[in-house]
């Protein structure tokens, strides 16, 4: 698999568009899954994923076959997502569920939460999306790379440039924060 991708990237570096198409076809679903949960906005996430693939095309010459291609791709994606979120001032503002919980506002929001109301999977999914988007950047990055891109803690540590134990701690805190945020709905 890795050898195949290394060969394909050599072709991409030469400007072979059919090889590039192969890379896009292979990785568009996991990349979109990661990016959409990271930024929490469909239109923005598709634009970001497009830009990530273009960056892969432009930087194909710099790709070293000894590095795992998927790790390299998601490193580009993570950096780009973080950059976009920091610089895009017009992005939709997410409700900070953590702050709402702490302030006790969640229980009085009638359209979202009412005692005894049963939440279906779609509603819970939407609430969870918002909670994920509200997580601190590093916790969100580590959790999403593990959950939706299928990376091991060690691979995540390479992507994020931190230790494995730091990744372990980030993922643990991310899950605890999500649990706290969703507690009123469960």
């Amino acid at each position, binding site marked *: 698999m890795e050898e195949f991708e290394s060969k394909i990237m050599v072709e991409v570096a030469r400007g072979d568009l059919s090889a590039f198409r192969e890379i896009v076809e292979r990785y568009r*679903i996991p990349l*979109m899954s990661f990016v959409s949960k990271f930024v929490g906005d469909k239109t923005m*996430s598709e634009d970001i994923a497009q830009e990530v693939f273009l960056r892969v095309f432009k930087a194909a010459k710099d790709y070293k076959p000894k590095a795992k291609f998927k790790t390299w791709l998601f490193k580009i994606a993570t950096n780009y997502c973080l950059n976009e979120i920091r610089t895009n001032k017009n992005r939709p503002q997410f409700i900070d569920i953590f702050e709402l919980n702490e302030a006790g506002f969640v229980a009085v929001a009638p359209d979202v939460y009412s005692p005894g109301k049963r939440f279906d999977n779609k509603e*819970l999914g939407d609430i*969870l999306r918002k909670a994920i988007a509200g997580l601190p950047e590093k916790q969100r990055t580590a959790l999403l790379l593990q959950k939706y891109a299928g990376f091991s803690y060690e691979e995540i540590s390479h992507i994020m440039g931190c230790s494995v134990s730091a990744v372990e701690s980030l*993922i643990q805190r991310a899950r605890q924060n999500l649990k706290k945020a969703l507690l009123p709905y469960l």
Partner: protein
Amino acid sequence: MDCNHTRKKLSAYLDDELSFKDRELIEKHLASCPACSAERKGLLLISSLMDGIENEDISPFFTHKAVSSATADLRSRYKRHFLKPALAGFGILMVLLLGITELRPPATIETIRHEYLRDFGDFPPESFSDLYISSIKGAGR
């Protein structure tokens, strides 16, 4: 292993990121601690809810759009690397040619006449043409 340590390691335990020995220690603690066991269930629930989040639909033109962007990038690279230097080279060549032409001494009627008649200098001696050209050359002096 105490509760505090177990809770710090719970996610790694659920993600199968622990050594065999640590895993055994966690399992032993979970079997005897209802609070940590409940914490484990809570984290498992979050994990399964995350599994249930539907993926966004990807535009059917996604791949086409990505390849089009790459094509545009290739074109701009071509312009940058080949076309622009080629045009610059052509421009320099034209300037040099114009410069050379401008540097040549201006042609006089006499020099034009001399160059023209030089091409007609190989007629057989004493032939009519030779005599005619000689007379013209002589007239010019």
